[in-house]
């Protein structure tokens, strides 16, 4: 049907290629005139929390008629400070992903998933859990999460209610080794006071890649104040624009470098003697061990010249205590090498030598808000289980993290029978996926709570869908910091899929089905009110503001009693000796080393992706496509020697498997390694966009666990690279 008059505009609209994008975007393309007219009215702003990564930054969600328009950074939140990263903006569209799970699913006998009602799911899961607990004991049930406010309250409480001690999170492939090294030497993990520091060293950590807005803001401030920034990394990462110096260290040898810098501080008596004599134990034994780690020795191992090691140690000492090796997360020693726990110890102790603990520009311990609890008279508190953990052989690993990568093996041995996994993807992310799947398939019951069909859901018996993070209310978040804060995630857009249920209700209903409803006789609002009560903050005020920073700052310049057995810095670790390891930090070889024909496979984050959960989101994956950033990096000289050119398709072969990927030939990488970005290699056929994009280093990882730190040692992989079709 033709109209008599067709405007030029209508003609263009009709003739332009149309795609079915309205469902995945936010509100659809708008001319600026439309935006201008619309935005004067119809825009609601709700303060909430991002969930695009583990930082959970404060955000202001702008919506129109219940549908997401855009997100801005919450000005008060300590991690966002008014800014938000690409993920914060783009992952918000998760609500509208066509790959969302829309109803509870149960695996049928033919291995397919079929819809089930919530009531059936609660009853069947509750009954099965009770059977397992009765038959085999409550410690056969494990809970796994990537901590988020609701999960980290309800998960442990649910475990306590059923009597299991087996709490796990994703730190097995994040910071377990660093944490183990830090906790036993300085009693915790402080944060570097970057903004006020005069000399900042990053070892494998990249603020430009594993990005938190306030951290980049702090680094920019430090640079404005003329701080020196040194990157120690086999890869010139994206923090490079802020760096004064890049030390391209041989992968796996950071420990030798830090030990040698420590050697310089001690030999040249540049360390903070007053701090060491007042606040440490075992220094003499440590100093004796450190004698052999000379800069000459470290040069041979790390490839960093002895002159550089001496110079940098002296430079850092000259501005102490306002100098710091940043604590990092996964980086080069979170869960990376066989020597990562010792690197963690060495880094913590190097900072101690600088006397920077709780000093401006140094290493500061954060303060947590003092939150209230539910009234136990009205809401009985389940007692924590006293049974031994299923990973009890890892004596030094924090029980607040656990070693989740051993769950498959324990399942094969019959020591784990049931798992409840929420919003994390152990099959894709925690270790060798084949091994993970084989082990988890041995479970009698596996329940996964998620928003999309991750690789982990594929081996589940029940998949229970939550609303995405902008569609739900969560438990209050207490945020430790220089000033503690409280933050709240709350529903900011209309629920997209009516048959999705938030995790608090899922746990409550399963508990009821098990006859344990008395431990969950409260709403999230009631819980949040109880948590806020001691702070004198009403829930209505909290909901209005979203983030409230408490005016209760830490005291700088006063060294606190450390949470170690001695209350001091422990240069000598009795705990390590008791666990059968060396009580003083020492040089430990990496587990594997490449030869002339092979490479070490290393990995790292990209600022626009998180774990393996964002590659399926169109706004994030499009960046990958536009910049071909799933490619494997290879050093230019090595590539030239092998006749490889930028963009060539190569095969990457390890002892485990082969992968194919295109290469990025670069001068930004140590010749001994190849680098693959970590967000890729999704193989769940339900993740329609991410499936088949790039590959994951995890596909190549042998079944291995660091016996000290309980990590998957993710850089201990040797690969060969060859051009496909030759």
């Amino acid at each position, binding site marked *: 049907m033709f109209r008599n008059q067709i*405007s*030029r*505009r209508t003609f*263009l*609209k009709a*003739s*332009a290629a149309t*795609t079915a*994008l309205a469902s*995945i*975007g*936010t*509100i*659809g*393309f*708008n*001319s*600026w005139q439309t935006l*201008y007219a619309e*935005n004067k009215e119809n825009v609601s702003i709700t303060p909430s929390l991002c969930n695009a990564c583990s930082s959970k930054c404060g955000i202001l969600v702008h919506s129109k008629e219940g549908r997401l*328009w*855009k997100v*801005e*950074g919450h000005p008060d939140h300590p991690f966002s400070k*008014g*800014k*938000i*990263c*690409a993920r*914060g*903006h*783009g992952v*918000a569209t998760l609500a509208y992903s066509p790959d969302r799970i829309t109803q509870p699913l149960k695996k049928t006998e033919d291995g397919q998933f079929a819809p089930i009602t919530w009531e059936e799911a609660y009853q069947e899961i509750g009954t099965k859990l009770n059977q397992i607990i009765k038959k085999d004991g409550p410690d056969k049930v494990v809970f796994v999460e990537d901590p988020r406010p609701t999960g980290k309250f309800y998960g442990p409480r649910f475990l306590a209610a059923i009597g299991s001690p087996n709490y796990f999170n994703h730190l097995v492939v994040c910071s377990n080794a660093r944490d183990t090294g830090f906790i036993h030497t300085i009693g915790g993990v402080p944060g570097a006071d970057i903004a006020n520091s005069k000399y900042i060293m990053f070892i494998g950590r990249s603020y*430009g*890649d594993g*990005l938190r*807005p306030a951290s*980049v*803001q702090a*680094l*920019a401030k430090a*640079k404005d104040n003329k701080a020196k920034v040194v990157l120690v990394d086999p890869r*010139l990462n*994206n923090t*490079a*624009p*802020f760096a004064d110096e890049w030390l*391209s260290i041989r992968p796996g040898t950071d420990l030798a470098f830090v030990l040698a810098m420590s050697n310089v501080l001690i030999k040249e008596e540049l360390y903070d003697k007053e701090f060491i004599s007042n606040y440490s134990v075992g220094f003499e034994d440590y100093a004796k061990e450190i004698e052999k780690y000379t800069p000459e020795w470290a040069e041979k191992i790390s490839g960093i010249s002895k002159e550089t090691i001496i110079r940098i140690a002296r430079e850092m000492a000259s501005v102490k205590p306002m100098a710091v090796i940043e604590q990092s997360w996964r980086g080069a020693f979170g869960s990376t090498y066989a020597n990562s726990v010792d690197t963690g110890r060495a880094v913590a102790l190097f900072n101690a030598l600088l006397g920077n603990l709780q000093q401006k520009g140094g290493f500061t311990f954060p303060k947590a808000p003092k939150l209230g609890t539910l009234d136990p008279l009205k809401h009985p508190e389940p007692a924590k289980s006293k049974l031994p953990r299923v990973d009890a052989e890892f004596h030094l690993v924090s029980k607040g993290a656990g070693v989740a990568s051993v769950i498959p093996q324990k399942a094969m041995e019959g020591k784990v029978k049931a798992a409840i996994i929420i919003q994390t993807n152990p099959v894709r992310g925690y270790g060798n996926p084949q091994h993970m799947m084989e082990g988890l398939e041995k479970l009698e019951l596996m329940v996964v709570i998620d928003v999309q069909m991750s690789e982990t859901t594929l081996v589940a018996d029940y998949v229970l869908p939550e609303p995405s993070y902008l569609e739900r209310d969560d438990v209050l978040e207490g945020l430790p910091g220089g000033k503690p804060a409280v933050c709240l995630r709350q529903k900011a857009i209309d629920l997209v899929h009516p048959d999705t249920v938030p995790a608090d209700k899922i746990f409550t209903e399963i508990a009821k089905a098990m006859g344990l409803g008395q431990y969950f006789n409260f709403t999230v609002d009631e819980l949040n009110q109880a948590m806020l009560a001691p702070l004198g903050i009403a829930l209505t005020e909290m909901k209005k503001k979203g983030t409230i920073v408490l005016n209760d700052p830490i005291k700088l310049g006063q060294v606190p009693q450390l949470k170690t057995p001695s209350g001091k810095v422990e240069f000598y670790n009795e705990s390590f000796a008791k666990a059968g390891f060396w009580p003083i930090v020492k040089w430990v070889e990496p587990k594997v080393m490449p030869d002339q024909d092979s490479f070490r496979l290393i990995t790292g984050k990209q*600022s*626009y992706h998180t774990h393996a959960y964002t590659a399926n989101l*169109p706004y994030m994956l*499009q*960046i990958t496509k*536009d910049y071909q950033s799933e490619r494997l990096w290879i050093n*230019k*000289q090595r590539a030239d020697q092998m006749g490889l050119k930028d963009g060539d398709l190569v095969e990457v072969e390890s002892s485990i498997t082969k992968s194919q990927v295109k290469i990025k030939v*670069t*001068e*930004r990488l*140590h010749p001994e390694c190849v680098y693959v970005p970590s967000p890729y290699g999704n193989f769940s056929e339900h993740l329609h966009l991410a499936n088949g994009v790039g590959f994951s280093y995890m596909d190549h990882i042998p079944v291995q666990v660091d016996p000290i730190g309980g990590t998957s040692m993710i850089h201990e992989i040797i690969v060969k690279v060859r051009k496909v079709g030759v």
Partner: protein
Amino acid sequence: MARYGMLIDTTKCVACFGCRVACQMQNGLPPEEAFIHIYELEKGTYPNVNLQIVPVQCQHCDNAPCEKNCPTGATYTTKDGIVLVDENKCIGCKYCVVSCPYQARVVSHETGVVEKCRFCVEEVAQGKQPICVATCVGGARLFGDLDDPNSEISKAIVTKKAVPLRSDLGTRSKIFYVR
């Protein structure tokens, strides 16, 4: 009346792509259409290497080739120096696409209009900043009135020695880069 411009300090940009996605959300763009592109320039040979990251978008040229070449007058400059496209006049001929030396033009597959960065004119009209400036985690971006010698941006251009991209082209572009 103002003459709006921007400063981008590449020494503070880590290619986080926050600006790109914030802009897409602000303007309701689909994933594959972006007004901001990011170039990573690697200089030197291993291990003496430098990385420079340069975000590029419409430079809001005072002497805009796209505006001169637009046959319908759809591309125009506001009294505040912001180069805009009137969607009711654009015929989608793409002359502007080929005439823009910064490759800043994007064809909207939904409407057929050739679009680009608008300096978030609707936000600026309310006294706010363009979204790319507001969200920049490194504080790499400044926005303001180039005609006001006391504006933060005017001062920063002088102290940081910021210069336009390819000033030799005579476009008199209004985004200044610190490199």
